């Protein structure tokens, strides 16, 4: 029993800090219980601490999320920003389900377990909508790989995060098909791990994360509940302190060997129509899942905590209630279906227990060994405070700055290709199984076997009896968002959009995972709001829906991270046999540059290398992007390969097209506006490289309209030749360059 109703401010303050609440919040609690005329029990206090944490109730972001991101739907979305994941129509009968979430704080403390449980958690978010998970996505942001300061070296963090994703994803049998890896010293010791999952479900089998039927049985199935993972969410809502012993309880490893049969059992039960409502047990454990599912359906429940299956026999009731043990699902079923679900769980070897039932009442009641230990209004428990956090535009002197040119372009390019942010991702991504399930059509790498290059977007074929595919791409441009949150987010989204176009697909939906610093810092809050405003504007301008998302605050150690809105963009392709890939398909084909390369190096890797500090970022041109979309769609039949210009600029895009093939490129950049370094290294704009079949060049030119098109050269038998104003900037054997690019990560992974 906590004594708060007659407590002194000092005692309240101490109690609040121990629970991860603020003083104002504990005063709200005191007033509530003063109204009831009694003190709260342990479990009541702990349940509120969970329910009111930033991670669970989004108290800092809710107001602004609602203002900017609600209503970004379209006529083909089924559920957006309502349940645990977004549900979007795929064809007449089927829908795809998608969600992305951060698992940053656990991964900073224990990279292997943190990353693995991030994957496990996102799979459950998709599974709880009744969907078969079909693809995983991971966007990772690491510090400087040479950094050895801090509790864990950066190399340790990188290798263990990758191992966690590999071991969980590969063992659970869902392919890891797409994602991104960025390096920046700002993430030293505080990696960002954003995991996404895509599932497929028959539209009439979608399960809601709510229950509105009285008398249903409430079931917990899968893993047992233990003392591991207690207070994960409170700790995700705090800033990490090095050497903080109390962080240790929050660490878990994840167990894909339990998860795999659990997925089968849940889907079988769902196919049989047994499940009335379902939610995954993630952050906040039973406390969050039970309260939210009942409250969303206008129900309440009586829970008997003794019925929860435990790993440790000597757990306190509040520990059972808030434990975040992995691999558990929570569902509601009609009592008449108990025998059926019992058969299914037995068949798959899944443990389960009935922990209570739904009732019609405003109050949630929890009993333990016959005694009532919690009796509170669900609306109060799940409500939580909403903050209109202050925001303030950072005062920065804005001035335009020009990047200096390298003394020797050839030497600079050689060096540039092996930089961690530019080089090939083979060492990381080849650890992941990206073909299990046999539905990956365009893999993360494409081209000749053993001579692959990076894909712009991966493509999966989620249904056996249909050629329709889903294109998937994910990433962020933190260096740009750091300069200007609004325009930087726009450019991030624009790049995702281009990635879908260049794979032959049509952009279809967007999911965000927003990683920011401390929301109590008004400048951070300003950047957060600017990001939301950009997402909103982009969605309205392109007509794309924002279907689900996640906010992670407090990503800072000594310094705050760069604002990192990670965008997962999904596209649809009518027939996967029409997919386009990046690598050059033949010699003697004309190469076109469609769209514009903005002659500005702000936010580019080139700028980072040169140490230039930019304070201005040009606007993203969405109208031009729409024109690019139309041009490509109309001329799709004549296009051999496409690659968007992004990280590393035109030069890296050209090289990547060659690296996946045995062919070379012969390019003249004279006509492209800007200085030489801007032409080659700018990462801004709608620029897209297109290889056109030589016999179809005329047809291509006739059908492609509405946006500037420049012929910049031809594909060749071999070799890279790049010239400007009659002078060669680079003439080199593609193999030499490829080797530098391919081995860039060898020192670290």
């Amino acid at each position, binding site marked *: 029993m906590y004594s708060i109703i007659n407590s002194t401010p000092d005692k309240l303050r101490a109690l609040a800090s121990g629970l991860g609440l603020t003083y104002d919040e504990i005063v709200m609690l005191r007033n509530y219980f003063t109204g009831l005329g009694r003190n709260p029990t342990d479990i009541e206090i702990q349940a509120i601490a969970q329910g009111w944490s930033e991670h669970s109730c989004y108290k800092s972001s809710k107001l602004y999320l609602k203002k900017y991101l609600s209503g970004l739907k379209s006529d083909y979305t089924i559920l957006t920003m309502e349940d645990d994941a977004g549900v979007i129509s795929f064809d007449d009968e089927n829908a795809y389900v998608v969600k992305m979430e951060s698992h940053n704080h656990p991964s900073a*403390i*224990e*990279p*292997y*377990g943190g990353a693995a449980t991030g994957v496990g958690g996102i799979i459950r978010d998709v599974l709880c909508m009744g969907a078969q998970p079909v693809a995983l996505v991971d966007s990772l942001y690491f510090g400087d790989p040479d950094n050895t300061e801090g509790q*864990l*070296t950066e*190399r*340790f963090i990188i290798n*263990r995060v990758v191992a966690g994703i590999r071991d969980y994803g590969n063992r659970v049998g869902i392919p890891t098909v797409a994602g991104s890896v960025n390096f920046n010293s700002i993430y030293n010791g505080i990696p960002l791990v954003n995991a996404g999952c895509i599932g497929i479900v028959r539209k009439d089998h979608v399960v809601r994360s709510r229950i509105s039927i009285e008398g249903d049985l409430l079931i917990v199935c899968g893993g047992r509940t*233990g*003392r*591991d993972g207690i207070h994960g969410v409170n700790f995700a809502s705090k800033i990490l302190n090095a050497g903080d012993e109390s*962080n*240790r*309880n929050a*660490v*878990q*490893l*994840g*167990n*894909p*060997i*339990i998860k795999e049969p659990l997925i089968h059992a849940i889907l079988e039960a769902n196919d049989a129509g047994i499940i009335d409502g379902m939610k995954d047990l993630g952050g906040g454990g039973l406390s969050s899942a039970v309260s939210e599912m009942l409250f969303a359906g206008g129900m309440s429940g009586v829970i008997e905590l003794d019925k929860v299956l435990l*790993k440790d026999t000597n757990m306190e009731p509040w520990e059972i209630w808030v434990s975040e043990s992995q691999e558990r699902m929570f569902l509601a079923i009609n009592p008449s279906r108990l025998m059926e679900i019992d058969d299914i769980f037995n068949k798959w070897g899944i443990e389960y227990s009935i922990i209570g039932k739904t009732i019609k009442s405003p109050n949630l009641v929890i009993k333990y060994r016959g005694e009532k230990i919690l009796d509170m209004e669900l609306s109060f428990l799940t409500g939580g405070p909403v903050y209109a956090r202050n925001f303030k535009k950072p005062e920065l002197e804005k001035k335009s700055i020009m990047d200096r040119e390298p003394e020797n372009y050839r030497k600079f390019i050689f060096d540039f290709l092996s930089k961690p942010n530019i080089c090939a991702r083979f060492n990381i991504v080849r650890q992941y199984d990206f073909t299990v399930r046999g539905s990956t059509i365009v893999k993360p790498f494409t081209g000749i076997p053993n001579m692959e290059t990076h894909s712009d977007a991966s493509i999966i074929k989620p249904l056996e009896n249909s050629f329709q595919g889903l294109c998937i791409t994910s990433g962020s441009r933190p260096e740009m968002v750091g300069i200007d949150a609004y325009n930087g987010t726009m450019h991030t989204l624009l790049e995702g959009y281009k990635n879908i176009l260049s794979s032959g697909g049509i952009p279809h939906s967007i999911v965000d995972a927003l990683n920011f610093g401390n929301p109590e810092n008004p400048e951070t809050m300003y950047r957060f709001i600017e990001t939301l405003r950009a997402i909103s504007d982009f969605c309205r301008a392109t007509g794309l829906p924002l279907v689900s998302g996640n906010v992670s605050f407090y990503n800072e150690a000594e310094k705050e991270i760069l604002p990192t809105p990670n965008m997962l963009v999904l596209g649809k392709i009518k027939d996967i046999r029409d997919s386009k890939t990046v690598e050059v398909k033949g010699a003697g084909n004309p190469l076109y540059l469609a769209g514009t390369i903005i002659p500005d190096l702000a936010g580019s890797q080139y700028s980072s290398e040169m140490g230039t500090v930019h304070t201005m970022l040009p606007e993203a041109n969405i109208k031009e992007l729409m024109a690019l979309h139309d041009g490509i769609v109309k001329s799709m039949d004549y296009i051999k390969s496409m690659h968007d210009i992004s990280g590393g600029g035109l030069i890296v895009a050209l090289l990547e097209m060659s690296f996946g093939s045995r062919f070379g490129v012969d390019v003249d950049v004279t006509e492209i506006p800007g200085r030489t370094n801007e032409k080659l290294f700018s990462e801004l704009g709608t620029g897209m490289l297109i290889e056109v079949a030589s016999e179809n060049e005329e047809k291509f030119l006739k059908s492609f309209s509405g946006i500037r098109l420049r012929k910049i050269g031809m594909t060749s038998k071999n070799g890279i030749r790049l010239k400007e104003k009659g002078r060669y900037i680079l003439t080199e054997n593609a193999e030499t360059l490829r080797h530098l690019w391919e081995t860039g990560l060898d020192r670290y992974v």
Partner: protein
Amino acid sequence: MRIKVQIKYLPNVEDPEALSIKRNLELTGYRGIKNVYSYKIYEFETTLDKNDSMDEIREIAEKLLTNPVIQEYKIEDISE
């Protein structure tokens, strides 16, 4: 000299590999297994003298092989 590094999970960390082994032993009919624990053992052949070798291996164990949040390690000299 030869040095053995033995790594195990801390007592309160769940060991998925051991749990899977235990479960499968039960499925295959072994009835007397109460618990399984998995360990990881590395063996190093070193060239430095005893103290320097031990220091070097300790650093490797701490920096590269383990995370103190979930694991503990034991170093043993096994060169007879």
